């Protein structure tokens, strides 16, 4: 009559070692409805995502951000226009609310024009680190208030995309210094910028060299090995880790290719289509912060 194999019983009066019960139940209890409830709540509250893009000027950062989110987050600076080189490292934040299929995302992109552009780039990572820590500090202050808000506004940087110039050789000292310092504070994702200037073989060789460099200097980029939670995570993450750093091409102009309208870069020798690795680990960035 009882369809269950065993009934749960506590092992002691203060049971902290519970027994597992698998249910092929005659009647359905409905515990998994909690997942829907969670989803509804999450969609109502909306999500927040803060990205920071770091790299020298001219590597295609703004274009990349525009392509990633398929909208004009920034006016990318056109080559040829005389844009005065910023004399100091500035941090420039832009916030947008984008919506897709009922999911609201408050996206904040922080740009760092002037990074690595001076002759003496000593300590150019300091303002960036300062900014990141300041966001953490702000969150902490909100959290330890006595009467705190129901939903603390999250301005902490969830992900920092670092653009590596496509030299084809290896990581430069500036890159290494920066990555070393930042990988402890924030999730860093290194990408090879303007990858269309490298051939496929050069790209692969460059990629391997960068991976070796990262390992030698024990720089843990996202997804970090130490945060791998279970076997599935490990498998998924190791696949991603093989491809780091991603070689990207930013494009925000549309062209016709074989009758399809495609975002790409048109050159004399062909059209390069931009596609991007899946965004499934974007959410992971947010979570691993918590």
């Amino acid at each position, binding site marked *: 009559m009882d369809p269950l194999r065993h009934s749960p019983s506590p092992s002691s009066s203060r049971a902290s070692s519970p027994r597992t019960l698998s249910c092929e139940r005659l009647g359905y209890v409905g515990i998994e409805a909690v997942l829907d409830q969670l989803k509804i709540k999450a969609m109502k509250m909306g999500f927040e995502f803060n990205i920071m893009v770091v790299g020298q000027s001219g590597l295609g950062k703004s274009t990349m951000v525009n392509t990633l989110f398929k909208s004009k987050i920034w006016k990318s600076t056109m080559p040829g226009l005389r844009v005065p080189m910023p004399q100091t490292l500035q941090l420039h934040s832009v916030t947008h609310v984008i919506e897709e299929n009922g999911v609201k995302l408050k996206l904040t992109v922080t740009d760092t024009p002037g990074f690595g552009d001076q002759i003496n780039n000593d300590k150019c990572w300091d303002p960036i680190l300062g900014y990141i820590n300041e966001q953490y500090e702000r969150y902490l202050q909100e959290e330890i208030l006595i009467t705190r808000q*129901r939903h603390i506004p999250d301005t902490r940087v969830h992900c920092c995309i670092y653009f590596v110039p496509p030299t084809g050789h290896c990581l430069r000292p500036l890159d290494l210094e920066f990555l070393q310092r930042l990988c402890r504070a924030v999730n860093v994702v290194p990408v090879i910028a303007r990858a269309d200037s490298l051939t496929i073989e050069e790209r692969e060789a460059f990629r391997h060299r960068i991976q070796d460099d990262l390992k030698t200097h024990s720089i843990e980029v996202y997804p970090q090995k130490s945060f791998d939670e279970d076997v599935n995570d490990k498998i998924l993450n190791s696949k991603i880790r093989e491809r780091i750093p991603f070689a990207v091409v930013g494009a925000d102009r549309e062209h016709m290719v074989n009758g399809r309208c495609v975002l790409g870069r048109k050159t004399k020798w062909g059209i390069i289509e931009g596609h991007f690795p899946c965004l499934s680990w974007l959410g992971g960035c947010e979570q691993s912060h918590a």
Partner: protein
Amino acid sequence: MAATDLERFSNAEPEPRSLSLGGHVGFDSLPDQLVSKSVTQGFSFNILCVGETGIGKSTLMNTLFNTTFETEEASHHEECVRLRPQTYDLQESNVQLKLTIVDAVGFGDQINKDESYRPIVDYIDAQFENYLQEELKIRRSLFDYHDTRIHVCLYFITPTGHSLKSLDLVTMKKLDSKVNIIPIIAKADTISKSELHKFKIKIMGELVSNGVQIYQFPTDDEAVAEINAVMNAHLPFAVVGSTEEVKVGNKLVRARQYPWGVVQVENENHCDFVKLREMLIRVNMEDLREQTHSRHYELYRRCKLEEMGFQDSDGDSQPFSLQETYEAKRKEFLSELQRKEEEMRQMFVNKVKETELELKEKERLHEKFEHLKRLHQEEKRKVEEKRRELEEETNAFNRRKAAVEALQSQALHATSQQPLRKDKDKKKASGWSSIYSVTIP
């Protein structure tokens, strides 16, 4: 020169601009990511059952979760209310639920029920305290933390048909600011339909007039607003619990078999069990957990921190940092300790002085006593001496007297012719002796 000045212009403070997307980006999978992350983490849900012994708490739990939680029957002879938490791991499809059922054993059994609510309130506070301690830790792991805060309290009302008992009112009033209360009428198969209707109205009226805040199902989200509003009107739910199965028609249903009929648990006409299950598990479990965290726990945290003396801002409305407050408190505490130490030391010194004085007094008196004693002894000795002298003299005189008398008697014998002279002598002799006797004082 390295230019490391920071100029920041952030557009984040004013309203963020909306942007339209040119194509499919893919972040609509974010809720799914959230959900799958929660699934791997697992959920925890803690229910507190408060009600008299034998009212059907364990049976209802078994019926709700469709399983038999093995618990021994509680006796009616408990000295005081005690809480018995038990944790079970349930799994349904891919959702893992860590369910903790806390039973208030012995509720309503004592003769003096004054303090019945206290163990319950203390238990709830203890769970909040544990969470607060974890949150205030420096190295904390809230992600892994097994949340033991009570998410919902099912209060079982005895189906008398009249009104709430005063014990119920008092207990609910104490609990309403600490936990989400859902009152339910137990053993609802003992009340008739019309009685039940009146009973429900009476109960709700009493709760409202006494200012008891029971949990209202949320009506702000359109998806569930309608059903929640309808359910709110049916509170308190009249439930029947049963784990036995009875054949009705051609299928086996959970029911209670009486000689006069069968009360089916899952039949909406017979009792509100289905409504309770819907509300508790299928529709509002997440909301219950959120209310516990954002309302009850925050209230507890605020009171606790204020009690400990923390403030959010001082008189100049400069926000106090926690560190400063800690330091200030610590200094205060240390100086307080020091002061107390000083006081005690002072007291000790004083006491020592007093005792010394006393001892000195005593010594002085003792000396005096000794001195007097010696004087007394001297005197005594002198007196003794004098006495001895006197005794000697007396002895000497007696001897002389005896000698004289002997002489006299001789003289008398020898010369009895001269009595006058002898008489005179006698007289003389006696006169001498009388003189002698007189001179001895």
